[in-house]
């Protein structure tokens, strides 16, 4: 199952669906990296609003995505983690370390804009 990736200016927005398998996540990682390179994006937003569960594999993969994309000079923001999912994650010990997070797409875009401004 393909995760839809939209391009909005210099930002790529990937919207994850609920029934995301491990293979789908790995596909997403590849697709995002390819597109960051192709479009020279400055930011990536991964919207996990519909994600029912965030387990260690998902969290590891998101960390990988963020690190690879950072090597390309772009920032990643994870948005839309649901309260119940966040709760489960921290109990499992998953904190997404240093990846920026925001409440939703709007906040995520605002964060990226603000970051771009402060760089310039």
């Amino acid at each position, binding site marked *: 199952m393909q995760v839809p990736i939209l391009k909005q200016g210099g930002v790529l927005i990937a919207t994850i669906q609920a*029934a*995301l*398998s*491990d*293979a789908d996540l790995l596909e997403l990682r590849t697709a995002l990296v390819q597109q960051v390179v192709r479009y020279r994006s400055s930011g990536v937003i991964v919207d996990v609003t519909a994600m*029912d*569960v*965030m*387990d*260690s*594999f998902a*969290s*590891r993969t998101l960390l990988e995505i963020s690190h690879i994309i950072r090597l390309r000079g772009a920032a990643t923001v994870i948005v839309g983690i*649901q*309260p*119940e*999912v966040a*709760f*489960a*994650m921290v*109990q*499992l*010990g*998953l904190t997404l370390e240093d990846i920026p997070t925001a409440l939703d797409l709007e906040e995520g875009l605002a964060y990226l804009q603000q970051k771009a401004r402060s760089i310039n």
Partner: protein
Amino acid sequence: MASDTQILITSDKDVVTARQQGRAVALQTGFSMSEATLIATAISELARNIVSYANQGSVTLKPVHGSNGASGLTIVASDSGPGIADVTLALRDGYSSSGGLGLGLPGVRRLMDEFDIASRAGSGTTITITKWLP
């Protein structure tokens, strides 16, 4: 008393099925959305281990009743894969997602009320976890 649900795990798609079913049964048993998500997350970890290390196995969801009348859900994740040679190491809590040999078992144990693991190198693994309604 609801009956057991068994999900065969052979691919990563089954991991998704197992956790979705797990969430549904948890809600039916009476757990809140938060608790059901915890249970679904634990199931996701265990089911994935089966796919990664044993190629195939099963996850069984069993609604249970405790001796004091409490209701709960027991999940048995079982496979006849290579087994875990050092169970103690697997349960070592590094408090990071890669603690415990990357199997996520310390985390799963934290999420549930009861945790039992039976495993021997060469003869498979069975993990039994239970969560009770408060």
